[in-house]
């Protein structure tokens, strides 16, 4: 990853779920959830993904449910 140039490029924070008007995050949708779990398998923090707090909470819940069902991993091997 290239270090971002400070002050010059400041990406506007857009919550993906707000933009797409998703109000329920489905835990069965592994493809969607995989965008928010980096290689290590942790839940991507909000400061990086730009997801709003409401959706981050829903997302975290969905990820935890999906982990239980082995749809997405707890940790990367």
């Amino acid at each position: 990853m290239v270090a971002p140039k400070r002050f010059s490029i400041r990406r506007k924070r857009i919550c993906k779920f707000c933009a797409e008007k998703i109000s329920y995050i489905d835990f069965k949708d592994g493809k969607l959830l995989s965008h928010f779990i980096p290689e290590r398998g942790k839940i991507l923090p909000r400061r990086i993904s730009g997801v709003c707090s409401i959706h981050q909470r829903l997302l975290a819940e969905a990820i935890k449910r999906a982990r239980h069902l082995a749809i997405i991993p707890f940790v990367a091997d």
Partner: protein
Amino acid sequence: MRVYEVVFVAAPTLSIEELEAFITNMQAVIEGRNGKLLKIDNWGKKSLAYKIGKFREAYYVVLSLEGDGAIIAELERRFRVTDYIVRFLSVRIDEDTKRSEKLKTVRQRKSSTKGTPEPQVNIEPEAAPAEQPM
């Protein structure tokens, strides 16, 4: 009546017929207790994100049903006593879907009233006195 989504993960050693038989069995349980099975979503064999026991893949089945908590309790009891069910999860979804429906209508109303300039007029007089002490 509440709406639930019940997902269960069955061992890959099961034959398709056995799985079908199990699903119809569950269907009988639901309907025997005044529940309504809305949808059966069989994903088939899917690879697991991590090993469960000695399995690398498993069958996934999603049951959408309408009923009360007693049905869920009975279904979960059966999942627990059945050897080839390796994971299960029941989630109540009617409240979430209701909320998202509500948000949708609110959004629609907002977007339809967007064209009227009225709210902006109201804000301006309030902002003006604050600047005067400067």
